[in-house]
């Protein structure tokens, strides 16, 4: 627990405004935005996620200006598509991660070659989720978050690099000065451990 806290470094300027990373609170805020278009709730989401999305994009080499712009775009999607947020499928942080990830890929695509805007798979309106499905997904995400934070430091590091740095396995290996096989086996072990913590059988 303290390890996880120590790892979370907060920029001083945002610290005052930032919402603590309380997943239930983030979910509640997003549901408020979804159901009542609550601007105060949205401002709290913005204060938490915009700087993190900007940080995520800057870490992978996006310029500060473009990263700020894309973070704005991501939050704009959150605001406009909040009604489509399906709590049975993901928690707030997970949903917003997929939006930021897809924006990053789209931005890279636009830079490589103009293509028609594909429908963003983060928005898939479907039938009303059942309450138990919502509970199940939220608690599953919560368990995954806890399992991730409880990973041994070496595994935690490769998983984190894999998801938030734009680093394929080979690049992680290079950066950590590890053999490629070690990176892959650490990832594999980490995912097995997360799965075990979820109570799923490991194949």
């Amino acid at each position, binding site marked *: 627990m303290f390890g996880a806290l120590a790892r979370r470094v907060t*920029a001083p300027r945002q610290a005052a405004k930032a919402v603590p990373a309380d997943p239930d609170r983030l979910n509640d805020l997003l549901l408020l935005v979804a159901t009542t278009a609550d601007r105060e709730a949205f401002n709290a989401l913005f204060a938490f996620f915009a700087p993190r999305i900007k940080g995520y994009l800057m*870490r992978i080499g996006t310029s500060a200006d473009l990263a700020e712009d894309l973070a704005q775009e991501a939050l704009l999607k959150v605001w406009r598509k909040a009604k489509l947020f399906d709590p049975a499928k993901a928690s707030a942080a*997970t949903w917003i991660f997929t939006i930021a990830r897809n924006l990053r890929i789209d931005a890279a695509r636009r830079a490589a070659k103009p293509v028609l805007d594909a429908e963003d798979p983060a*928005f898939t309106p*479907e039938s009303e989720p059942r309450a138990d499905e919502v509970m199940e997904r939220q608690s599953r995400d919560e368990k995954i978050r806890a399992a991730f934070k409880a990973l041994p430091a070496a595994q935690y590091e490769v998983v984190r690099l894999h998801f938030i740095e734009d680093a394929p396995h080979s690049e992680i290996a290079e950066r950590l000065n590890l053999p490629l096989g070690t990176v892959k086996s650490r990832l594999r072990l980490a995912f097995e451990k997360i799965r075990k913590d979820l109570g799923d059988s490991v194949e």
Partner: protein
Amino acid sequence: MTVLSDIRHHPKDLTLAAYAAGQLDEARSVVIAAHLRLCAKCRLAVADFEAVGGACLETVEPAAMSDSALDSFWLRAGKQEAAPAPASILAANDFALDAAHPLARYLKEGVDAIAWKNVAPGLAQHVIPADGYRPGVLRLLKISPGVRIPKHTHGDEELTLILRGSYTDEVGEFRHGDLADLDEDVLHAPLATGDQPCICLIATSAPLRFRSIVGRIVQPFIGL
């Protein structure tokens, strides 16, 4: 949406995690997305990996937004009309299940309209560069029933999805929806089974390497 319950061959965990992390090249993303449409098990796995991504996002060191960020946000948001809810993407472009949505961008007319190029008796292919994001190559192979591809290995980064028909090889039987995510050292000689051609969608991020494999596949036929 059609969900195939009897899918027996799935992508590896590391492949699904890389997909969820947004690390796969365009070609492999398309193949994984096409498999996900048919496979509830892997959709759950991807949702789990995305939750890991969400947890990771929370740990990112924040980069302060400009002082006026929130004001400019509301300025921008105020001008935006609420987007109309899109029709379910799961229903969109579902022309003949074979060309599932993720492929639609590359195969506008569907699998039946492919202009196949014969490369050997009983073997035809269609190559699509997938260079939108992290270039890769999508390759469709059509193997006539009863035709066996000579023994070969695959690169670590190649994925094969069965769109139609089936084949058997040293690993097992692969049918519609099955995905081969083979280790580099697996040597196999697939034999198209059943009475319709086996159509496979193959993604590779290393086109040169693949060309040499096709060369080796084709060679024995030319020798006939």
